[in-house]
């Protein structure tokens, strides 16, 4: 079974985020963690405040982009970073809870602001061992 983990992949000027998990929800949550990892070390982010997110899209891939863009929006609007994500999906509707804290520049050393999740290399696929992988390129 696919273990929960995340990674980055190279894409020209930007950067790709990829999450793996035994379920689609887990893969989506790991992709969000990968996105935080573009900005800072996720382990440095304390789960002090909870923010709920809801999004809906016509298919899995647009839903992934919507989910990541909702995270980008909450980070930008609230000046926060997030570390823990719980994702629930019903069809193509996603409800999530994110835990994080206000940006602390000295401690987080945020490398770069994310402008948005793009549709480049946007994929949500089952893995060979029955799990899921979700990925896209983010614009920085």
């Amino acid at each position, binding site marked *: 079974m696919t273990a929960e983990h995340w990674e980055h992949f190279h894409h020209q000027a930007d950067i790709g985020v990829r999450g793996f998990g035994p379920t689609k929800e887990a893969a989506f949550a790991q992709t969000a963690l990968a996105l935080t990892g573009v900005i800072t070390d996720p382990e440095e982010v304390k789960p002090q405040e909870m923010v709920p997110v809801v999004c809906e899209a016509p298919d899995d891939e647009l839903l992934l982009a919507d989910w990541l863009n909702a995270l980008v929006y909450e980070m930008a609007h609230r000046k926060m970073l997030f570390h823990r994500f719980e994702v629930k999906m019903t069809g193509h509707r996603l409800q999530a809870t994110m835990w994080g804290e206000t940006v602390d520049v000295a401690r987080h050393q945020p490398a770069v602001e994310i402008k*948005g999740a793009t549709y480049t290399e946007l994929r949500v696929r089952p893995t060979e061992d029955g799990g899921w992988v979700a990925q896209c390129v983010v614009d920085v």
Partner: protein
Amino acid sequence: MSAGGVGFDISCGVRTLLTGLTRKDVESVKKALADSLYRQIPAGVGSTGRVHLERPDMDAMLRGGAQWAVSQGFGFAEDLNRIEEHGCMNGAEPERVSEQAKRRQKDEMGTLGSGNHYLEVQEVTRVYDGRIAGIYGLRHGDVVVTIHCGSRGLGHQIGADFLKEMVVAAPKYHLELPERELASAPINSPTGQKYLGAMRAGINCALANRQILTHLTRKVFAHHFPTAKLALLYDVSHNTCKVEEHLLDNKRRPLYVHRKGATRAFGPGHPELCAELRAAGQPVLIGGSMGTCSYILAGTTESEGEAFSSAVHGAGRAMSRHEATRRWQGRQVMDELAGRGILIRSPSARGVAEEAPGAYKDVSAVVEAADHAHLARMVAKLEPLICVKG
């Protein structure tokens, strides 16, 4: 009309200010100047500006761009002559911009952003075309200030909103997208028109943002150099879609020219240029990255036929951010550049490592290629003295 063809950072662009100072003038106060700029120019993740906009001021800014900023006391009326569209993109429709986009921008006016965005104090170290440099007001040894940034959170959100809207609407317009990132809609469709109104508001946001940053920069310089004026040489964007007349199939036609990572480069005599610049062609401002040089070029007549009056906008990355942090540490990059007389000020050491000069392609080779292809003519080379990074 393609939201993907404009990109997330609508109207990201560059402006260069002439200081009338020389390197010698700046050297004596360089460290204090770098520290003041770093204190006064909000930069980096989570930073907020000193201008906080709620409606109806937000909508007025989105309609008026740099003209709005000047009316609020940021800069001077004469700056507007040196900005594309005279500082205000017509046809902006703030009501087409989502509440999320406006909320994201509320505290971000007059902020630099992060990544490859910067404010640099630079020295003119080489002049290639003395005639045009003279018209532009550039002399060897002069000090200029260059600002590279865009429409901040508002533009990013417009990009995300319309990318989705266009992909979802594509089947309705019988558009088969080979790649979803190429999200498009017919120009005269409701989606296309809505995007056009929002994107133009995004352009105004970027123009207003750079105008406010200019005002902050002038205040810092006024403290250290009370007589320095900091006249605007030019402000040009490299992520836009604009209606322009070009020659196509031997006919002059209005075209929707998408430029993503491409600088508009109008040649000599173009009516859009102000009288002082018209004989020389439009300044084409090409940015580098911290330790690397930047260039000022001039639009050519040939670029019209070759590329609808467009040229490059920069070098692009040679390696991933991850690879850059594997190779360099931020502190080490800052120390090495300080040894070369370049002062870096940034809230993030990791950000500096990711933007290390070696992580980018050779901007000189890129600019020479543009010159050889007659897309733009090399005028002057700039080397950094101070760089404020987000």
